[in-house]
Structure formats: structure tokens, C-alpha cells
């Protein structure tokens, strides 16, 4: 796979990345042990789920809004059952409609959709959460690439 350029500012030995890596590896080991073996697409889904879960559980991100929102979303994915009547909400967040946020740059709305939990955030918080989310995403991609390289050598 072609990598565009080396990733700056990413320290694979920092405690945050170690937590993230450990969590992911434990999840992978669980998936590997599962018997009977799941189908390829099911296993891909499980691995992807594990990737996002370990991002949300890394020590830096557990305090973040995006990681809580992501964990919530992951739980909803896991619990998709046809017979489920309602999702119980603990607290309803009043979200300002986007039309009343004229001071934001035009692309902020797309960013709000991409970053978990982005819709309810103030602009300043959104930027901060985005930076953190991007760092975790990069670490996860790096980790998975390293694993692939290690396994296939």
C-alpha cells in the first residue's frame, strides 16, 4: 500500500498508543479464538469494531466527548436487533440548528458529521476534539499496518 508521506508527531511508544495497541491486540486475540470461525465479512466487521473501540479506550481519549460518542455508537451497532422497541436516552442534548451558526467556516458541518459527537459541540471544542480524534485514528492505522507487516513477513 502506498503511504503518501511519513506521519509526523506520532510517537508509537507513548503510553496512549500502548494502551490503544494493547486493547486492540486483546480484541484481535479474542476474535482469533472464536469458534466456530466467523465468515470473512463478519470477522472484518468485528476487527473494525475492535479498531474503533480501542481508539475510544486509549488513555488520552477516554475523557473526550468523541470517544464517549463513539462508544455509544459502537454499542448501538452491536445491539442491532429487529425486536428492539426503543433506544432509551439518558439526556437529550439541545443542538443549535446549523443555520444559526454563521460565524463558522463553511466546512464545519461536514466535520461535525465526521467526528463522533460533533453535532452538539461548540466550534472551539470541535477543533480540539478533531485534533485528538485525528491523532487516535492515525495511531490506529499505524498499528494495524504494523501488525499486517509483522504477520505477513
Amino acid at each position, binding site marked *: *500500500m502506498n503511504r*503518501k*508521506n511519513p*506521519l*509526523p*508527531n506520532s510517537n*508509537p511508544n507513548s503510553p496512549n498508543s500502548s494502551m490503544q*495497541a*494493547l486493547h486492540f*491486540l486483546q480484541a*484481535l*486475540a479474542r*476474535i*482469533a*479464538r472464536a*469458534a466456530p*470461525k466467523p465468515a*470473512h465479512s463478519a*470477522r*472484518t*466487521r468485528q*476487527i*473494525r469494531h475492535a*479498531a*474503533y473501540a480501542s481508539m475510544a479506550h486509549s488513555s488520552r481519549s477516554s475523557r473526550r466527548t468523541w470517544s464517549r460518542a463513539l462508544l455509544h455508537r459502537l454499542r448501538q451497532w452491536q445491539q442491532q436487533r429487529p425486536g428492539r422497541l426503543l433506544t432509551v436516552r439518558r439526556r437529550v442534548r*439541545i443542538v443549535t440548528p446549523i443555520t444559526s451558526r454563521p460565524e463558522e*467556516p*463553511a*466546512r*464545519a458541518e*461536514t*466535520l461535525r458529521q*465526521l*467526528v463522533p459527537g460533533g453535532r452538539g459541540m*461548540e*466550534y*472551539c471544542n470541535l*477543533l*480540539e476534539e*478533531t*485534533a485528538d*480524534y*485525528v*491523532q487516535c*485514528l*492515525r495511531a*490506529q*492505522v499505524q498499528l*494495524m*499496518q*504494523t*501488525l*499486517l507487516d*509483522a*504477520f*505477513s513477513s
Partner: protein
Amino acid sequence: MSRRRSRISEEEINELISKLQSLVPESRRCGSNRASATKLLKETCNYIKSLQREVDDLSDRLSDLMAGMDNNSAQADIIRSLLSS
């Protein structure tokens, strides 16, 4: 719920924008005026989308890899790579 809207200083926003600039590749430009902030946000959105696509792709490849392993060797490989990195 109180609103802090106009109390957030321009300086804080600029600081966050330059932090994002340092994270997102191909966006290392000076200036934090509105136009480049929009451009940076666009680059950031594209970058996040491409990272998420990479996660999907790598999950698929990892799944391929794990398909070819039996239980014992999978765990051994995982432990081995954990120790060697």
C-alpha cells in the same frame, strides 16, 4: 446550559487551527484567515475520511490474514509482534 459563544478568543481558535495544520498532511500553509481556515477544514475532512477508509481496508486485510491461521499460531503471532515492537 450557558453559552460561551463570543468569549472564546480568536487566539485560542488560531492555536487550535495551527495544531490541526500540523496534524493534517499537505496543509502546511501560513495564515489563519477565514479562507485558509475553510481550506484547512476541508483538508481535515478529507484526511479523516481517508483514514477511516484505511481502517476499513486494513480490517479487511487483517481478516484475510486471520482466515489463514489456526488458533494456536494466531495467538503466538500476536504475542510475538507485541513483544517485538
